Every structure is written in structure tokens, then in C-alpha cells.
């Protein structure tokens, strides 16, 4: 089973530990993991900004890069959702690519979904002493059906307790370019999310999408909260929750 890891541009740039953690988890499943070295961005920023041409160029590139994989696994609900639910439509007017895009879409998985439902990862070799609360990212939840998978895996981490927040499924207000076009609205939504997180008094907020992470962590710190950790689910499952990145 040849599994291609698409790290996402955001993790590549902002938080490489997510990519490293995902790599470690996939290797633990015993799959053959490949990380195409030319990978960059899935095209979602352009797609959602109405820049179809820009998005198509990047989508075509990704489809070619992963064409020899049995699975594409992504540590992000939003970027896996882009490939799985939007590539076919985005590339519909380019006939020779369309079929390949559909083929790839059918093989694309969000990381925790893949670990639970394809790889059947049972043993989680990680420890986290504390309480965590999980934020469901919009695309992960509503495009990829990610809800129980991360919780199931997290419950196997030694020392970890999950405490659900109210409104876990409510949007945090990131929305890509939305956050820099409608900053006031976006920041308000992030604020409400922080309130829900803080009400749980969890030691850490755990989630599966870096966009939400940057938004919520940025808001927590601006509110003066320096104690609630913000972690990607892959980092927790791989036992990579420290500041070290290698």
C-alpha cells in the first residue's frame, strides 16, 4: 500500500511539526509512505477567491504528483476536502485531467479518518497528561465526515482526557481570505470560539486544521491567555507536543 502524504502549504510554512507527526503516524501503520518533494499548495486559496485559473494550475500539478499513490493522506480537513469534493468540479473543463482528478479524489483521506478507517491503527504510542477539548473544523466535519475518528484516537493517548466544549462544530471564523477581508467579523467569531474553549478549562485545544489553529491560537494569545496549548491532532497522537520541531 503506497500512501502519499500531502503536507499542505500552510503546515510546510507555519508548522512543520504537523507534517513530521503525520509522517511518523503513517509510518507506524506499516504503509509505504511517499512524500513527493515538489508538492506545494492544493489551490484552495485561489479556488475560494474565485480565481479558477490559478486554482486549476495547482490542482493539475497535485494530481500529477500523486498519480502513482494508492492513497493521498492529508493532515487537514480543509485541504483533503478540496481534493475530494472540489477537484472534479474544478477540473471538469479539462477532459484529460478530469478522470484522473476523480480517481484521485476517491483515494484522498483526512489523516485521522485514514488511520481509523483504512489503516486500522490500534496502538497509539503517545502520552499527554492533561485535559483536551476538540474543535471540529468546518471542512473536516461537513465535507469529510470527520467527527468520531480523532476522538477515538485521542482516547487511546495515555494520560489524556477529552472534555467536549459547547459549540465544537461552530465555525471559528477563519475562512481563508475571509480572515483578512472581514477582520472584525472573523475576529469576533474567533473570540466566541475562545470563550467556549476557555469554559472547558482544558489544558489544550486540539484540532485537525492549521487554518483554525492559527486563528484560534492567535485570538487566545491576544486575549491574554498564554496557558491553553493549541495542538494539531497529529502532534498529540505522535507524541510531538513539545516546542522542538525535529
Amino acid at each position, binding site marked *: 500500500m503506497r500512501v502519499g502524504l500531502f503536507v499542505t502549504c500552510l503546515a*510546510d*510554512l507555519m508548522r512543520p511539526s504537523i507534517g513530521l507527526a503525520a509522517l511518523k503516524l503513517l509510518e507506524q501503520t506499516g504503509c509505504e509512505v511517499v512524500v513527493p518533494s515538489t*508538492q506545494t499548495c492544493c489551490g484552495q486559496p485561489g479556488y*475560494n477567491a474565485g480565481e479558477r485559473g490559478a486554482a486549476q494550475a495547482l490542482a493539475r500539478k497535485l494530481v500529477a504528483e500523486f498519480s502513482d499513490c494508492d492513497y493521498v493522506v492529508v493532515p487537514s480537513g480543509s485541504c483533503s476536502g478540496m481534493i475530494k469534493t472540489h477537484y472534479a468540479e474544478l477540473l471538469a473543463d479539462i477532459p484529460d485531467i478530469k478522470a484522473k482528478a476523480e480517481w484521485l479524489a476517491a483515494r484522498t483521506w483526512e489523516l485521522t479518518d485514514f488511520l481509523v478507517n483504512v489503516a486500522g491503527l490500534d496502538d497509539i504510542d503517545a502520552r499527554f497528561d492533561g485535559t483536551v477539548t476538540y474543535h471540529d473544523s468546518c471542512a473536516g466535519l461537513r465535507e469529510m465526515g470527520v467527527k468520531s475518528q480523532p476522538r477515538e484516537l485521542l482516547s487511546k493517548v495515555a494520560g489524556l482526557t477529552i472534555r467536549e466544549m459547547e459549540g465544537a462544530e461552530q465555525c471559528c471564523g477563519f475562512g481563508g481570505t475571509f480572515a483578512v477581508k472581514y477582520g472584525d*467579523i472573523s*475576529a469576533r467569531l474567533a473570540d*466566541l470560539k475562545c470563550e467556549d474553549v476557555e469554559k472547558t478549562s482544558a489544558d489544550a485545544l486540539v484540532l485537525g486544521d492549521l487554518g483554525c489553529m492559527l486563528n484560534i491560537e492567535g485570538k487566545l494569545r491576544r486575549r491574554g491567555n498564554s496557558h491553553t496549548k493549541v495542538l494539531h491532532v497529529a502532534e498529540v497522537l505522535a507524541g510531538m507536543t513539545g516546542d522542538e520541531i525535529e
Partner: protein
Amino acid sequence: MEITSARFKKVASQKLADPKVQAALANAKGRFVVARARAIKDLDNFEEIRQAAADVRDHCLANLDQYLEEWERKATAAGTIVHWVESAAEMTRVVLEIARSNEVRKVIKSKSMLGEETGMNEYLERGGIDVRETDLGEYIIQQANEHPSHIIAPATHKSKDDIADLFAQKHQRPRLDDITKLTHEAREILRPHFLDADMGITGANFLVAETGSTMIVTNEGNGRMTTTMPRVHVAISSIEKCIPTLEDVSLIMRLLARSATGQSISNYISMTTGPRRQGDSDGPEQFHVIIVDIGRTRVLGSDLRPALRCIRCGACMNHCPVYQNIGGHAYGWVYPGPIGSVLTPAYVGLEKALDLPNAATMCNQCGVACPVKIPLPDLMRKLREKQTQLKLSPASQRAGMGAWAWLASRPFLYGLATKVAVRLGKLAGGKESMLHRLPFAGREWTRGRDLPAPRGRTFREIYAARKKN
């Protein structure tokens, strides 16, 4: 109605900063969402019903000409006078003509979004006709001289205190602060108007083709009084409201009230088929139905067609995180929230509502709540694409996205550029690893929050270094 969507951003920020509006919105926020969630649990096959309803609506739209003709035949046979009009101006003119030729002085009105769209009340009033809104929410809005902020709960942006003050001032009576008492007072004031109105105007939730009826769905008795008490009844409806059969109506009615208010069924469903017949105990002497287009055929022939499936339940706005926090007025026209962000540009012109399709996080909380499965975020994205094609999107955005795609298509250059960028970013983040102030577009981000800084190395370079060893 005047279109103020161009001021979206400014008004949204004002609403966010207005404690009174925020209190009223916070009060309303959970209510609809919780009620709907509870109500759909009663149906064990909710998703199947949703799909069936979406299919019915699609079928109606695909065969609209045929069903409208059938509706007209049946309606005319029942004695209804049918008028077809294309524009808002034409519609209001026809209504005024009907009123004038029947020597109407006072009109009672039940809720109609089409009435808002066409500015009908103002037009009739300018024509010397006294128009009274009789739905409680609409009555409040009319007294306050405002516009609705929600399609089924028009006064949802107002608190009980606002309404108590308003009534005390307008009714010239002692201030009440109990909701039931306020409602009774409004009812008392409205009662004589029901009795001496010459004409009733209603909208139509649906036109039923097989019976030639118009149908309204309400929770207050006012709708039924409006359709039966005055001697002339005028119903206004746009073409896409046509539904083939009563069977289809009953399917959709399983979803409408549940999605809207969380009721299993609304308090009233009133069907009107022609004027009063011999032997009927009530009903108008004349029944006119005005069927309008106002941009619908244009949308029907475009890739935005799924938006015409809308049954006006309001669930998309109730579930929208943006609407929940800014309310409906910022959207600047008749239909707020996600459906408004599609319909407003579609009906009044893309260039008049540039913000609306962009002011959404694409979270799809609307799409999963919509009882007829309108893919609202996808339709907003289509509008964003149109803005790009017509060069209506900001030039900086087009240039920025183009540059990003150019760079990200060139892995070697991308690698170099990102290496430099993440090192600079790490430096700027300092000891706390947090960016507090960003330049350019980033300013909008850091006005309200920080941004965690990059870690100084990219995944790609760490991975490449590892592979070498």
C-alpha cells in the same frame, strides 16, 4: 427597496460594536438552531425527505412554464383574476390600479418579502392609500420605520425593551414590559383596521398548480383574516413559487416549519382558490393574483438556478455564524444571510453587492441546514468567480493569487522563497513566537488577534535534510 449592500463592511462593524443589537442577536441566536435540531429528530428519515423536496423543487423549476400554465388555467376557472408582470414598477402599478378601481382607501397586509422587494407599501402610500402591516413583527418594523432583518422574524434585531418604548411612543399609552401584554395591545390597535379595510394583500408561499390555489403559511391569525375579510384580495407571488401538486405541498410542509421555527407544523396554512363562491360564509368578492418575474427567469437560465429552490424558511441565516453576529441589516437588501448573499447579487446586479458572496467563511453550516439542499457556498463561489471574470474583485487580490499560483507551480523557487520567508517570520515573532502587527492585508488580521509565527524552517527542508542522512 433601496440597496445598501455596498456598505456591508461598515454596517457589519457598527452592528458588532452596538451592545443593544448584540444583546438582541445573542438572545435569538441559539433559539432557532436548538428548536430546529429538536424538531428534525422527530423525523427518522429527514435526509430522505430533504432529498425528495430538493428533487421536487428541481422538477418544478425545470418545467416551470408548464406548471405555471396549469396553475393559471385552474385559477382562472375558479374565478381568480391573474396578472403577469415583469418588473417591480409594473407590479406596484397594477396593485395601485386594482386599489383605485375598487375605491380602496385602506389595505391590510400580511407578510410578503416580495412586497419588500418592490417597495410596494411606500408606493401605495404615495398613492394615498393607508397600508397596515398586520403580522406582529412586520407591524413593529412598520411602526419603527425600518426594514426586516430576517425573512421570517423581521424584528429579531429588536429587544423587548426597544419594542416597549416604541409602542408607548406610537400608541400613546403607558409603557408595558410584558411580551403578552405588548402583543395584546398591538392586536387591539389592529382590530378595527381588519374590520374597515377594503383590500387585503398577501404574499404566497406556494402556487399549487393542480388546484390553481395560492397558499400562505403563518403562525398568527392575521394572514387568514387578510385573505377573507376585505372585499378585495390581492396575492403577489414570483414565478418560482409554483409547485405541481398538493402531495408535493405536504412533502415540503414536513420540512418548512421544522426548519424555520422548529414547529412540526405552522399554526395556519391558508389556501385560497378563487374569490367567494355562492354559499361561502366568507371570502373576498374579487381575488387577484399578480405573478412577477423580476429577475427570476434570468436566474433560472444561469448556474445559480438551485437558489430558486428556496422555500424561505430562514434556516440558512439562523445557522450562519456571520449572520448570527451581525444580523440582517448589513446585507443591505431584502434577503439577508447566505441565501441573500446569492439572491441579492443575482437579482439586483453583481456590482451592487460585491461584498455579499465574499463575506462568508464557506463553513457550510447553511448548506447542511437548508431543507432543499441548496449548495449555498458553491453558489457564492460561482459569484466570486464571476467577480474575477468581470474584474470586479480587488486588483490586489487578483495579483496576489496569481503570484501565489505562479510561485507554487515552481517548486524550486517556491522552496527558496519560503525558506527566506519563514526565517524572517521567525525573527519577527521574537521570543514568544507571536506576530502582533502585520503589514498590508495582514493588518486586517492583527487588528483583532495575533498570528503564531513560523518556526524558522519549512517541512520540505527538514524532510530533505533527513532524507540525505
